Structure formats: structure tokens, C-alpha cells
């Protein structure tokens, strides 16, 4: 039983490490115990969004836009990561969902601080995104 408890602590600690902030927001890590709270992890329903990107004539990403963002995401910050081969991050940008009445949108223009200015659209294999707000 002692062995099992120790193993559980190790595994949960691993989960926290991998999960990053999503899980860490509601987990209380003590010296010997772990406990979970009541995280609202899909509160604004961003799981099924479809980002699109624009390019310049050289095929570099110039902007990422997301339409159809649920109204419940209004005012939240959306983080979009351009993901390349081997699950490598090619760049991340953030934008704030403006106030809206039905569905919302986010537009993130590529810059030095958002995505960078030299990400080839051809190398982007998927978008990963997250919305966070209080």
C-alpha cells in the first residue's frame, strides 16, 4: 500500500508537469499529497474552432484568424500555436476576443512577437489553440 501511494504521487506529479498550467491551476501540490479542484476547462467551447491563415506572395504566414468563436469567450485571450513536423512549435501568437453579440472572432497579425515574420505556411501542419480568461 505504501508503494502504491508513492507511485500515485509520482504519476500525478508527472501529469502536472506534462499538463502545464491547465492542470496546475487547480491542483494543490503538497510534500506528500495531491488534491484536485473544480477546473472549468472547456468553459468557452474553443475545442472545435477552425483557424485560417493568410500568406504573403512568398508563402509566409502574415495573419491567423479565427471566426465563430463562441460568445462565452468574449474578452478572453486566445493563444494560437503554429505546429510543424514532429509536433514542433513554429511560433505562437496571442489575441483578445473582442466584445461581440453573437459569435466572435480573433485576428492575430504576424509580427516579431506574434508567430514571427518568416513562418512558411507550407510547414504548418496544424494549429493548436487555447483560450484563457477570468
Amino acid at each position: 500500500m505504501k508503494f502504491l501511494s508513492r507511485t500515485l504521487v509520482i504519476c500525478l506529479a508527472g501529469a502536472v508537469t506534462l499538463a502545464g498550467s491547465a492542470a496546475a491551476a487547480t491542483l494543490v501540490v503538497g510534500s506528500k499529497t495531491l488534491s484536485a479542484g473544480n477546473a472549468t476547462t472547456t468553459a468557452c467551447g474553443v475545442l472545435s474552432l477552425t483557424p485560417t491563415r493568410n500568406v504573403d506572395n512568398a508563402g509566409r504566414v502574415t495573419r491567423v484568424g479565427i471566426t465563430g468563436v463562441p460568445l462565452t469567450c468574449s474578452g478572453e485571450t486566445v493563444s494560437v500555436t503554429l505546429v510543424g513536423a514532429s509536433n514542433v512549435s513554429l511560433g505562437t501568437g496571442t489575441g483578445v476576443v473582442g466584445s461581440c453579440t453573437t459569435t466572435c472572432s480573433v485576428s492575430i497579425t504576424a509580427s516579431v512577437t506574434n508567430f514571427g515574420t518568416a513562418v512558411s505556411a507550407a510547414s504548418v501542419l496544424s494549429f493548436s489553440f487555447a483560450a484563457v480568461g477570468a
Partner: protein
Amino acid sequence: MKIRLLVIVAAATVGIGSVTAFAATMGVGSWHIGTGADTLTKGTCTVIGSTNIADEYVLESSPGTNNANTTTAIVRASTSGNREWMFVRFDLSSCALPTTGGADTATMKLVVKTAPGTARTLAATPVLTTWAETLTWTQAQALTYGSAATTTFSTGTTSGATLSVPVTIDVDALIKSTTANYGWQITDTGASSATTTTFNTVEAATAALRPQLVINYEK
């Protein structure tokens, strides 16, 4: 019992790790969080064939004549009243791309029939209003064009060469919009010159010599 519990914990560990792989930018301590991902499908579509391509050229010296059914199209700069412009348009519908897709790269390929002795710089400018293959020089003056060329490119001096003209930004925008596609006007950007550049058109007998549009897309 012990084993079952360990499996559940291990599965949770892997699951959480994979879902939030790129959520590291979210602030710790926030209470309102959602994540998701959208995987893209990549592919290539080449627009070819007379049913998908329209092209022709117009002559300032014969303002009422159209040259749609010739096997070549001529481009020439001149200030003495004999400029010649080429028009080419590709029907993207054969690629069946959704408006949520886009062009990673789009390249118009033109095969030079007769190259100039000295390389010329040509421009590809989007055409914004409709034209038919009965277009004349006079009618071309009434068309609306993009405010700037999409790209400029050198003709080189080699007859038979295939020129690759990048038009990614235009094709990407066309895929994303529902506006009609009216193709490009090809002009010589240089000063007055009697030098001409002659391209093969979609009427060329050999298929490989005809214009093509190669789109590497995502959807």
C-alpha cells in the same frame, strides 16, 4: 487492484500531457481555460486544360481585334502605340478547395515560345473585373486591375524555358473568398521597346507547353 489503479493513473498522465502540449502559454492560476487543435490536410492541385484556362492577348495597334484562338500570346512594352498585353485566367473550382483552406504556394507556369534577346521584366497584375476570350484592347482599357502588380519576373533569354511566376497571395485570397477569379494581366514593365516576349497559350498543340497553375494547398 493495484495494477488497475496504476493503469488509470498512467492513462490520465498521457492524456493530459498530449492535450495540453501547446497550452504552455496559459497563465497558471487562471480558472477559465479551453484548448483545442485543428490538423491540416496538405495537397497539390494543378490547373491545366482548355476547359479550366482562358488566355489571350490584345494589341494596342489593333484595338478592336481579339486573339483568343492563337497558339501564342505576345507581351511588349511600347509608348509608340503598339503595346501588347497577355491575359490568363485559371478556374480553381476543379481543385474543390473549401473557403477555410488556403494556398501554401501558388505558381503560374508560362512557357516562353520566343524569348527576347535581352531579358525583359514582366508584371502579373490581378484583373478584378470579368473578361471573355473575345477581349479587345479597347475593352481591356475598361477593366479594373489591382492597384499593384502581384509580382514581377524576368523573361530570361531562353526560348522554351518555363517561367515560374509566384501568385500565392492572390490564389490564397481567392480560395478564402467567394469572389470570382478573373486571373492576371501580363505586361512588360520596361521602357519603350520593340522587343517582344512570346508565350505558348492554352491552344498550343503540346499540352506541356500550355500555361499551368500549381497550387500547394492546405485545407
